[in-house]
């Protein structure tokens, strides 16, 4: 068997680390662990954040610059990649660790700066301004005047359990994962626990599905465990189809072995010998990293036949989802895996009783599964202490939109949304006023800024009429138009509905038509006076009830969420659009009718030349005229007119 290029070649040492209890480690082994986990390095280490968003922000170019720098100077350094540290708005991120010194991270760098930064750092000088912070370690020498990450509010207020090693370790290295305590949970399970005991441990921990439904994971496993069958399956749901959610991707790119170990444990608990990761095709980086991780795990014997002589067999394969939001829904996902259109089916029977190829199948989310190794190693009671009340553990949020800091935020369950959005993400950007947030993806809810004191917890959010969803938070400032946003989500749902059932297919379409009428000029005479628009809007509330009540799957049931919650909290904005035909945030430009004041227009032609729709006609030196049918309300004419002759009502 060929050896993977992603291991250090110290397989025996690494396995010893995994198999022995930490109390049994010899000092020699501890030293090796420190090197393997790169807590200590023997030569300089340069790490570049090459997660997807890091790459888009220019990570690849940074890597090239670093490699060029190193080879030009023939330096003996390690260059390696890492995942997302979580602060997406400050990517790309470069980390440097010199022997004996703490690791220091630089943010928002461009490739030209790389030689300057590295020159400085190799001369033990900290380049001013570019640094983000250093990672505390009591055995290593800290840098002067550089804050520790755990002192920066963005990190200090988080409790990073699953994200702990993301952006720190090399995700491709199984050795580094094991050296940091990885696979000990799985080995413990297959050596000391029965299938059922693992189910019970997870049940006791109170772990609930992180995809948003809040179903007790242990209960689902028990159902599958108790359904007798010659074959069972575990499917990891890595479709992550909510726009604005990227925590699963960060976990897969930042620490794939954590997920693989979670899958191993879950498969063991239910007695599945085949596991699949259903992942969206666009996640190229995640797929690449998972493939390598699976290969390494197989090489080390964590996957395969008779794993560590336990008699347990497991293989993991990756299935690339060809892209449909609804395929995140578990029965649609299974249909897709079976080579069908991803249309959900009615439950019961639940997949845990009858799933993939009609066999018991447990489907869990990436984040859910990534929690499992920690629970098995540290015990369910420990997990319980992390959260509050019925919600245990931590939850990762992906914050995007108009927040000061966007990225991934992991907090214990029970933390208030306010603390996530204002204290950690820094509230609205550029001194703007925070209007509210949208939480839970396209079928999530809108909450105004003064309602953010809700704790992060499935039940509390439900009571407040909101949902946790996968944990995507879109931060909205005063410049965001709520009606436009709601229309956007409704359009999205209407395109993503599988179309199978009437309430969802037709209901989302009707809703989207009505909303589009509100934010646009009427398309034809058929639609609508303001009263009509208002009546339509009122009928939507009733329609929403029926959609919730009768749609086959969660997509249709939850599609009205953004609309209904915003009608509760932001009704005034709807009324402004409907009655005054005015968008207070200046987003719905098509509502405006522009006209040119004949008195002021000199006929300079500039507006006609600049109009992208050729909607302005006239003859030079005479007043011009805007053809309102053609005008899309972009407002360019108003901007370019030197005589302030363009107005809108």
């Amino acid at each position, binding site marked *: 068997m060929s050896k993977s290029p992603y291991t250090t070649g110290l397989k025996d040492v690494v396995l010893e680390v995994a198999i022995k209890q930490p109390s049994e480690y010899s000092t020699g082994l501890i030293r090796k662990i420190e090197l393997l986990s790169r807590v200590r390095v023997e030569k300089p280490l340069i790490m570049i954040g090459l997660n997807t968003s890091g790459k888009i922000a220019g990570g690849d170019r940074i890597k090239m610059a670093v490699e060029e720098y190193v080879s030009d100077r023939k330096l003996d350094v390690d260059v390696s990649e890492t995942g997302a540290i979580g602060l997406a708005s400050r990517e790309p991120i470069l980390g440097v660790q010199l022997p004996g010194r703490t690791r220091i991270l630089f943010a928002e760098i461009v490739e030209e700066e790389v030689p300057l930064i590295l020159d400085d750092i190799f001369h033990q000088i900290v380049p001013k301004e570019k640094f983000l912070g250093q990672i505390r370690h009591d055995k290593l020498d800290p840098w002067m005047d550089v804050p520790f990450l755990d002192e920066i509010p963005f990190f200090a207020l988080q409790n990073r359990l699953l994200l702990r090693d993301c952006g720190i370790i090399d995700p491709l290295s199984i050795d580094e994962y094991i050296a940091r305590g990885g696979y000990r949970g799985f080995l413990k399970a297959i050596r000391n626990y029965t299938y059922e005991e693992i189910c019970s441990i997870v049940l006791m921990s109170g772990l609930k599905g992180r995809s948003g439904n809040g179903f007790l994971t242990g209960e689902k496993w028990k159902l599958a465990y108790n359904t007798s069958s010659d074959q069972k399956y575990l499917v990891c749901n890595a479709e992550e189809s909510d*726009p604005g959610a990227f925590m699963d991707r960060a976990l897969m790119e930042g620490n794939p072995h954590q997920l693989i170990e979670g899958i191993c444990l879950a498969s063991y608990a239910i007695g599945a010998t085949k596991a699949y990761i259903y992942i969206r*095709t666009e996640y190229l980086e995640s797929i690449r990293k998972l493939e390598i991780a699976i290969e390494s795990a197989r090489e080390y014997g964590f996957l395969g036949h008779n794993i560590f002589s336990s008699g347990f067999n497991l293989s993991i394969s990756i299935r690339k989802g060809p892209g449909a939001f609804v395929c995140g829904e578990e029965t649609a996902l299974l249909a897709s895996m079976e080579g069908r259109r991803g249309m959900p089916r009615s439950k019961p029977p639940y997949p845990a009783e009858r799933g993939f190829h009609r066999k018991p199948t447990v489907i869990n989310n990436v984040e859910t599964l990534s929690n499992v190794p920690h629970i098995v190693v540290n015990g369910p009671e420990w997990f319980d202490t992390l959260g509050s009340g019925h919600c245990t553990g931590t939850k990762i949020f992906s914050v995007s939109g*108009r927040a000061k800091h*966007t990225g991934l935020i992991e907090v214990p369950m029970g933390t208030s949304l306010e603390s996530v959005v204002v204290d950690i993400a820094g509230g609205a950007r550029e001194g703007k006023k925070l209007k509210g947030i949208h939480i839970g993806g396209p079928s999530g809810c809108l909450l105004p800024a003064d309602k953010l004191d809700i704790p992060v917890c499935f039940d509390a959010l439900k009571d407040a009429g909101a949902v946790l969803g996968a944990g995507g938070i879109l931060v909205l400032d005063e410049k965001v138009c709520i009606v436009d946003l709601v229309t956007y989500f409704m359009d999205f749902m209407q395109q993503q509905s*599988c179309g199978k059932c009437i309430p969802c297919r037709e209901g989302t379409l009707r809703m989207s038509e009505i909303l589009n009428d509100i934010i646009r000029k009427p398309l034809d005479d058929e639609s609508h006076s303001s009263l009509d628009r208002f009546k339509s809007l009122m009928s939507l509330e009733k329609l929403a009830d029926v959609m919730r009540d009768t749609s086959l799957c969660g997509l249709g049931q939850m599609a009205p969420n953004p609309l209904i919650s915003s009608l509760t909290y932001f009704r005034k904005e709807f009324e402004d659009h409907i009655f005054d035909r005015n968008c207070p945030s200046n987003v719905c430009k098509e509502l405006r009718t522009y006209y040119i004041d004949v008195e002021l227009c000199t006929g300079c032609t500039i507006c006609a030349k600049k109009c992208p729709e050729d909607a302005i006609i006239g003859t030079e030196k005479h007043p011009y005229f805007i053809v309102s049918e053609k005008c899309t309300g972009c407002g360019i004419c108003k901007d370019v007119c030197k005589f302030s002759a363009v107005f809108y009502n």
Partner: protein
Amino acid sequence: MGKTEEILNQFHQVSRDVLIPMLQAVQDECGYLSEEAIEKIGSHLSLPASKIYGLATFYNQFRFAPTGKFHIQVCNGSACHLDHSISILKELFKHLGIRDGETTRDGMFSLEVLACIGACGQSPVIAINGVYYPKVKAGMIKDILEITKLKSS
């Protein structure tokens, strides 16, 4: 043996389970799914062409015509939407004279709208043949297209 057959023979399993992976492999190789390819896959797996076509039209990934030399993807995820990705899209419509899902007549550009490219921190984002342009503005579109065209000649 044709390209499609070669791809099909790489699959050991012959069942509906591998339909999607097969379509993906064929599209990766040929750029799109032709009628012939669908027919071949159908007879290989004993599946009616209508079922394969019906399946392929369900998912975003599959195409039935080749893309342009430059494939432009515009992200319209929630973060990009807040940052006016629609005006960028309109700008592209205007300059290219095509809608999303179409290819220009000279075969140079094709346009696709995605729900989330995955760079919400850099919004709005577009990608041309896999090269990303973070934080674009509608005003930059013309130049980006010009430069892209130059690259091809």
